[in-house]
C-alpha cells in the first residue's frame, strides 16, 4: 500500500467536527429524555393499564420496534408534508428518534416494573409502609437498579444512531464528516478521525454511566 496519510488536511476541520459531535450528543440526549418520558408512561400502561388506551400503546410499540428507524424518519420527513405537516430535518430526526426510543424504552422498563418483588412489598406492608411509601422506598430503588444498565446501553446506541441524521442533511458529526470529505477527499483521514471522536464520546459516556450506576444505584456494572 503506497498511501500517504495526510492528516494535516483534516486538522483544521477538527473544531468544526467537534461542534458537530456536540450536536450529535444533544440529539441523543434530547431524544433519550423524551423517549424515557414516553417509555415510562407506556410501560406503566402496559404493566397496569387496560382498555382502548392499552391497545394504542401496544400498537405504538409494535410499530416502532418492528420497523427500521430510518424508515420512521423518512416517513416523518417525506410523507408528512403530503398531509400538510412540514418538519425541518432536525425536527424530523429528533421526533423520529424520540418516538423510536419511546417504544424501546417501554419494553425495557416494562421488564423492570415486572421484576418488582412481591415478597419485599409484603415485608414492607407488614412493617407498616403505605402504598406510596412502598413505591418510594422499595419499588423505585429496585426498579432503578434493574433498569439502569439496559437504559445506559440504549443511550449509547442512540448516541451512535444519531449518525442517521446525516442522511437528512443535519450537520451533526457524520453530516459534517461528509462535508469535510467532499472538500478534502481525504476519506481515510476524515472517517478515521470521526471514528475516534465517536469512540471517545461513547467511552466517556460509558464510564460516567457505569460510575453513576455502580455508586448511585448499586447496579452491577463494570467501569471500563
Amino acid at each position, binding site marked *: 500500500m503506497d498511501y500517504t496519510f495526510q492528516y494535516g488536511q483534516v486538522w483544521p476541520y477538527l473544531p468544526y467536527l467537534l461542534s458537530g459531535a456536540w450536536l450529535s450528543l444533544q440529539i441523543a440526549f434530547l431524544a433519550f429524555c423524551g423517549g424515557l418520558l414516553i417509555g415510562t408512561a407506556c410501560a406503566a400502561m402496559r404493566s397496569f393499564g387496560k382498555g382502548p388506551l392499552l391497545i394504542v400503546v401496544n400498537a405504538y410499540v409494535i410499530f416502532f420496534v418492528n420497523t427500521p428507524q430510518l424508515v420512521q424518519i423518512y416517513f416523518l420527513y417525506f410523507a408528512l408534508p403530503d398531509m400538510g405537516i412540514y418538519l425541518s430535518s432536525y425536527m424530523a430526526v429528533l421526533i423520529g428518534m424520540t418516538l423510536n426510543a419511546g417504544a424501546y424504552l417501554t419494553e425495557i422498563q416494562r421488564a423492570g416494573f415486572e421484576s418488582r*418483588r412481591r*415478597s*419485599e412489598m*409484603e*415485608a*414492607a*406492608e*407488614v*412493617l*407498616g*409502609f403505605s402504598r406510596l*411509601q412502598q413505591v418510594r*422506598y*422499595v419499588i423505585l*430503588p*429496585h426498579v432503578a*437498579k434493574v433498569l439502569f444498565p439496559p437504559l445506559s446501553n440504549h443511550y449509547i446506541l442512540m448516541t451512535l444512531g444519531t449518525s442517521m441524521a446525516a442522511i437528512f442533511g443535519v450537520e451533526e458529526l457524520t453530516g459534517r464528516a461528509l462535508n469535510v470529505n467532499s472538500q478534502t477527499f481525504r476519506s481515510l483521514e476524515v472517517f478515521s478521525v470521526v471514528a475516534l471522536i465517536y469512540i471517545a464520546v461513547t467511552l466517556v459516556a460509558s464510564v460516567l454511566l457505569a460510575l453513576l450506576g455502580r455508586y448511585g444505584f*448499586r447496579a452491577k456494572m463494570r467501569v471500563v
Partner: protein
Amino acid sequence: MAHLELDDVSAAYGTFQVLKGIDLSVARGETVGLVGPSGSGKSTILRVLTGLLPPSSGEVRVAGDVVDYSRASEIRRLRDRCAIVFQQYNLFQNLTVLENVTIAPTKIRGRKRAEVQPEAEALLARVGLSDKLGAYPDELSGGQQQRVAIARALCLKPEILLLDEVTAALDPELVSEVLDTIRGLAAEGMTMLIVSHEMGFIREISARVAFMAEGRVVELGSPADIFDNPQKERTRDFVGKILRH
C-alpha cells in the same frame, strides 16, 4: 387473659377455604408451635395475624382487644403489635443491613435516627451481626439474612413475634445460629407463635404445640402430648411419618 386469641377464625383465598374455624390462644410470654403438613393453614394463620389476609369470619383478639379488619387504622395497630419473620427473609435488597433494620422505625414511624440507630446496632449485635452493618443482603449468607430479618422485626418493639418457617430456606449448618437467636427471645419472655418443620426445635422451645391439618387445629397439647402420645389418628399418622426419618 390470653395475649393472642383466635376465636373460630376462618379465612379463604378467593373461594378456597384455607382456615376452617381456628381456636387458638397464646398466653403472654408463651411460645406456641404450629406443626402440620403443607397446606394445612399454618402460614395462613400468621398472614391473618399480620393483616395480609383478613379473616372471613371469627374474631382475633390481641390482649383482649378485638381487631376490626375493616379499618386500616386497626390493621396498622395490629402490625405494630405483631411482627412477622418470613421464610425467605424478604429483606430490602437495595438497603444495607443497618438500613433494613432502621427504615421502618425512622421513615414510617417517624422516630429520630439518632435514637433508633443505637437500638438497631444493639439488636444486630445480639444476633451476632455487628460486623455486617454496612453490608447489603446479597453479600450475606441465608442464616445471616434471616437474623437481620429477626432484628428488623424486633426493632419495631412488637409484643408478639410470628415466625414463618424461618429455617426452612437455610442450609443445615446455618439453622442453629437462627435457632439460638429464637431461644434467646423465648428466654426473655417474648410471646411467639412459631411455624416450623424443625420438630426437635419445636419440641424443645414450645410450651404448647398445635397440630394442624386441612385448615383445623386437630390437636393441641404439650410437646410431649403431641409428639409422644398423640390422641388423634391424624396426628399419630403425621408424627409417625416425621419420626421415621
